[in-house]
């Protein structure tokens, strides 16, 4: 035995061992990407470098042998710098997306590609479970979300984005139709959390904290839970029966819901704090913003959310026949379409820019128009004019578009002297909403008048009190933003309750340069929208406009997904090494070595643009299987892994043994799932045994949600058996 020291620890290793072997047997981690004991040592990746006292050069620990008395450091500054640069260089030439852009653009990081893909395969149950990892109210959110995911969806570069939000609603509706999924709750921690506000943020935080084993109570001032989802979204968009069912599922996890209690009246933050281990303030923004236009205080001028809430509560005001809505967002759309349904004859939407700049969802804009709404683009209210204290008309300043402003939209500027007057019976101001700051006077507010909460930890000026959602920082936003915060806040509160540190670093992931992506080979398939009630029917009642997807429609729509995110994301060795070092490959941004390409046969998919040239596939195919179906082509930066003459894999002597796939440290070679549509999923792997020609043989089996996704040969017998994956699977007990 040889005695050496690794990172200050005395280690013994057998004669002839490499430093890597000695370190591993001592439980010391050294990263490698090109080393595997199945094949000869190669030394390409250089990540296994270590420093040894008295040796000026860094040593590749995969080949350097231990010697008596050697003093090795596997994590010195020089070693870490070398690995960091190696990973930065490697990732600068790795053309792949770890995670799909839809998921990255979702403020809650919902695994859109995952559930869309599962829906395409008819795995609705698994899809719903995946959604519920991030969204507690998917049927509701699926209906109302302005879906930032779809704005990032690359399918729009082919024709139109995937209808992700509606697919989410579909999966959730399927779940609501039968025994709904209630996640398992972890053992009780004995910790108590109070949440003020039962809107999307509060309910989400409650849901996840309860699942973590905490005892959670939600306090809300209204008679029912749901917050803005209930009192700000009209029935025709989100039937309250759907919301009720989803809240009932949350309640089933054990969350206590208390309604009709108001902060500052029935309790204070301090009083809740005294009775709980943590308090989350999620009170929302319940006051309509003012336009500071003369005449706003006239009778017949309503705030947008005040108006919607009144209608929902059954106290619709008398709005008359001519109604003008000011604003271009989704609240304006909700207000105008509600006004139509209340029987108004002329409903105007006054907006100072044009249709293209409207922040509201395009579908909403179109559907409102179908229902008879009249748009007054490029106009801005100068004054609301009244008679006897009641609004009678609006004077509009005619606008034109000037230079782009900070948001990139062209700034509307008044056309001097050009105005217009329209007679109205009522006006609805849908230009935004604000926190009622008196409610939270116990907490420190920021310069905008919102609760100042930490961006990562959600902490406030009072220790143990957290704040999220519309009431905080930059103010009101879309529900999914609040939901994302709530999910992260739940983790922060959990860490706080357990006295643990929270890692808020955003782990590195690889992203493709959008400008380099070629879509020309994609077949065009139009986006499928769920059927809707005819305009002349729906504008007379509050029935849900959308009829939802049929199963057939949902599957077909989900099948349009381009599968941007990498299937190997959950077990990518390359990514796990990359995330260990604080890397910024952008510094070395440059040409990609290979074109994004694709070759597949029945089991194996090759994508050389993700290849890191570790050589494991080529070497194992040659050294272990003695096939050499693939080899290295070219040299230097442009070296490619390919069959001879760049033939497809199917035209080579490849016997689909799958060894290359098993050894590939990234997503360059992947084994296809036993699914029609391929989806990145966090599978569970187990080694199992099958009988082949009377001999026991090892196979690797991956499962997801109970379903077998892949069966991979795992020894010489199974690799050389010539059996297909289906045949191997059939042999499993």
């Amino acid at each position, binding site marked *: 035995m040889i005695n050496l020291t690794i990172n200050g620890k005395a280690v013994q290793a057998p004669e002839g061992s490499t430093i890597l072997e000695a370190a591993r047997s001592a439980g010391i981690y050294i990263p490698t990407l090109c080393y595997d004991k199945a094949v000869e040592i190669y*030394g*390409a990746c*250089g990540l296994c470098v270590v420093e040894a006292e008295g040796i000026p050069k860094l040593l590749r620990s995969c080949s350097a042998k231990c010697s008596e008395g050697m003093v090795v450091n596997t994590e010195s500054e020089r070693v870490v710098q070398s690995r960091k640069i*190696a990973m930065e260089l490697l990732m600068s030439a790795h053309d792949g997306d770890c995670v799909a852009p839809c998921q990255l653009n979702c403020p809650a990081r919902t695994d859109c590609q995952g559930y869309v893909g599962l829906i395409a395969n008819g795995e609705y149950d698994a899809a719903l479970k995946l959604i519920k990892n991030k969204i507690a109210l998917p049927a509701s959110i699926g209906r109302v979300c302005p879906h930032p995911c779809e704005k990032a969806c690359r399918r729009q570069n082919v024709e139109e984005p995937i209808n992700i939000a509606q697919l989410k609603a579909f999966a959730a509706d399927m779940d609501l139709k039968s025994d709904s999924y209630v996640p398992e709750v972890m053992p009780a921690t004995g910790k108590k959390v109070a949440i003020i506000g039962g809107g999307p943020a509060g309910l989400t935080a409650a849901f996840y904290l309860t699942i973590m084993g905490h005892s959670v109570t939600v306090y809300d001032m209204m008679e029912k839970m749901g917050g803005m989802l209930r009192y700000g979204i009209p029935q025709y968009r989100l039937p309250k029966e759907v919301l009720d069912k989803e809240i009932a599922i949350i309640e089933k996890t054990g969350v206590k819901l208390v309604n009709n209690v108001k902060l500052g009246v029935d309790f204070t933050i301090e009083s809740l704090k005294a009775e709980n281990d943590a308090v989350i303030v999620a009170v929302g923004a319940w006051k309509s913003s003012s336009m500071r236009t003369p005449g706003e205080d006239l009778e017949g001028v309503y705030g947008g959310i005040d108006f919607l809430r009144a209608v929902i509560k059954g106290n619709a005001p008398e709005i008359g026949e001519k109604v003008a809505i000011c604003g271009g967002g989704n609240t304006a759309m909700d207000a105008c379409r509600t006004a139509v349904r209340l029987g108004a004859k002329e409903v105007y939407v006054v907006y100072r820019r044009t249709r293209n700049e409207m922040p509201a969802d395009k579908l909403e804009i179109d559907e409102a128009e179908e229902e008879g709404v009249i748009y007054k683009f490029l106009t801005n209210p100068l004054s609301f004019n009244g008679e006897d204290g009641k609004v009678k008309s609006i004077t509009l300043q005619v606008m034109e578009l000037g230079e782009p402003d900070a948001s990139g939209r062209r700034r509307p500027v008044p056309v001097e002297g050009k105005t217009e007057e329209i007679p109205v019976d009522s006006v609805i101001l849908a230009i935004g909403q604000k926190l009622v700051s008196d409610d939270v006077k116990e907490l420190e507010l920021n310069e905008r008048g919102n609760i100042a909460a930490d961006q990562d930890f959600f902490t406030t000026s009072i220790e143990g009190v957290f704040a999220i959602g519309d009431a905080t920082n930059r103010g009101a936003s879309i529900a999914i933003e609040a939901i994302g915060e709530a999910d992260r806040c739940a983790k922060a509160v959990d860490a706080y309750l357990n006295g643990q540190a929270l890692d808020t670093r955003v782990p590195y992931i690889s992203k493709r340069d959008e400008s380099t992506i070629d879509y020309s080979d994609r077949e065009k398939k139009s986006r499928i929208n769920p059927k809707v009630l005819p305009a002349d029917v729906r504008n007379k009642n509050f029935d849900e406009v959308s009829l939802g997807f049929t199963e057939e429609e949902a599957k077909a729509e989900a099948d349009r997904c381009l599968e941007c995110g990498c299937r190997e994301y959950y077990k990518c060795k390359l990514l796990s090494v990359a995330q260990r070092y604080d890397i910024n490959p952008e510094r*070395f941004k440059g040409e990609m070595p290979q074109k994004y390409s694709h070759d597949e046969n029945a089991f194996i998919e090759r994508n050389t643009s993700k290849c890191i040239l570790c050589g494991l596939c080529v070497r194992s195919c040659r050294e272990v299987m003695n096939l050499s179906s693939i080899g290295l082509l070219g040299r230097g930066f442009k070296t490619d892994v390919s069959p001879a003459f760049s033939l497809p894999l199917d035209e080579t002597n490849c016997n689909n043994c799958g060894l290359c796939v098993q050894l590939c440290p990234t997503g360059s070679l992947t084994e296809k799932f036993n699914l029609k549509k391929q989806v990145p999923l966090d599978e569970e792997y187990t080694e199992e045994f099958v009988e082949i020609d009377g001999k026991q043989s090892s196979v690797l089996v991956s499962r997801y949600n109970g379903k077998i996704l892949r069966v991979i040969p795992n020894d010489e017998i199974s690799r050389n058996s010539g059996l297909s994956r289906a045949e191997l699977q059939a042999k499993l007990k």
Partner: protein
Amino acid sequence: MRIVIGQGSCGIAAGAEKVRKALLNTNINAEAISITGCIGMCYLEPIVDIYDDEGKLTRLVKVSENDAEAIASFVESGDASAVEKLVVSDEDSEFLSKQTRIALRNCGIINPEKIDAYVEAGGYTALKKALCDMSAEDVIEVIKTSGLAGRGGAGFPTWFKWNAARQSEGDEKYLICNADEGDPGAFMDRAVIESDPHNLIEGMLIGAYAIGAKHAVVYVRAEYPLAIKRLKNAIKQATEKGIIGENIFGSGFSCDFTIKAGAGAFVCGEETALIESLEGHRGMPRLKPPFPAQSGFWRKPSNINNVETFANVSWIINNGGEAFAAMGTEGSKGTKVFAVTGKVKRSGLVEIPMGKTLKDVIFDIGGGMKTDKPFKAVQMGGPSGGCIPAELIDTVIDYKALGATGAIMGSGGMVVMDESTCMVGMAKFFLDFTAKESCGKCIHCRIGTKRMLEMLERITKGEGKEGDIELLEELCYSIKDGALCGLGQTAPNPVLTTIKYFRDEYEAHIKEKRCPAGECSDLIEYKIVADKCKGCTLCARNCPVNAISGTVKNPHVINTEKCIKCGKCYTSCKFGAIVKE
């Protein structure tokens, strides 16, 4: 009377073969006309040496086939006036007289295609002495005394490698000569093989004897067809004479000899890549350890030295290790051959004792600059080396002293540059080379050199940004540390040395978007100086994009909007009226 025509590759390229054919067509006795290799005065090629019957030499330079009759008349009459213009000047003769030739001692003097010529010049006596009078240990001892170090670049003591290979267990060993001279700007090894192939064979056989190898292999780069031809011929002759083969000189020592031609890959100069290539594989370096001395060609103990190293061996055996060690400095013994090229007046092969200065080579022997622009820097060691600036011209030729500048001794390429060479462009040139030649195995070299090249390309295009120099340096140090083989580990040297000595030039490109040398086409503009322009219209006719306008005999003007900066006008103008700014 003997007429000897220098026929190395460059001599032939300069027209030596045409001269030979023309001379054969005169009334000179064909038997008196023979060839020799390269004397190293490449700038004077084609060279014809005429020895009279007393052996007195008349050297004619820059000879063309049209001079054949004049030469014939000189040969016949002995009247030198006919060839007066061709006789080498005293000044040019100094190019040779100031040198000390050991490795090159026969080059350009004897006929490389005839073994007898080599034997006549004292060839194969050292081999005989080694095989018959010395033990292998004695040979290694003499080499140790001589202080001979690997001339391929690294400067590792030759005796140490020989000894390690000798000590290695195994009855089958290989002695390999690395003749894959890939450094652009270096051609010493080519000259030795083309001009004195038997000297290489003799040196190798002595080495094979010393380490106990029965097989000698030469790996020659494919770009040297003439060297391959002459070496094959020499092997054939030596085999016929029993100098290669079984029981050489009755000593009981046997050794066979093979040539393998490379196929175009610089990385094969790295010893483990060379071995991979010899075995018929992609020339991708192996991990060390194990070192070739333990496990090399066909996994057998192997020793690899370069051509120039072997070319010194027979001289050392004959003259003793002390004689060799008497030349040079404390740490660097003997002589070193340099291929001096670029903007130097006299370019060619220079062999001088270690310890001389760069100034001795470039100015004293090389004659200084061939342009009117001042000396700026000398690039040594090719893509693995660096640029040494004018202020370090007194640096002594010594492994350590040169290493201290950030450059290396290297294999001997010395490219002289004047003020018109952009140093960022020079770094880019070498990185372009290494990036193309990287085998692609390790990350640092494969991607690192490419990214460095991209950064340098950006800088020379005027797209450099603050922080680029620091980022380049960070990447350089990391590549030196992390690359698998010598190619990658030394690839950053040209960048590091140019940053070290010419940082202001990098800054000018990055901050001022200006190329001080006026070489980076994206950063310059061509203009016509009206006073100097004669209106000859030549530039306008040469301009591929019709960017130049003007009438005959009147000053022309360049439309800078249209100009693509190809430089054709600049090179075509006979009046120096076009300037770069």
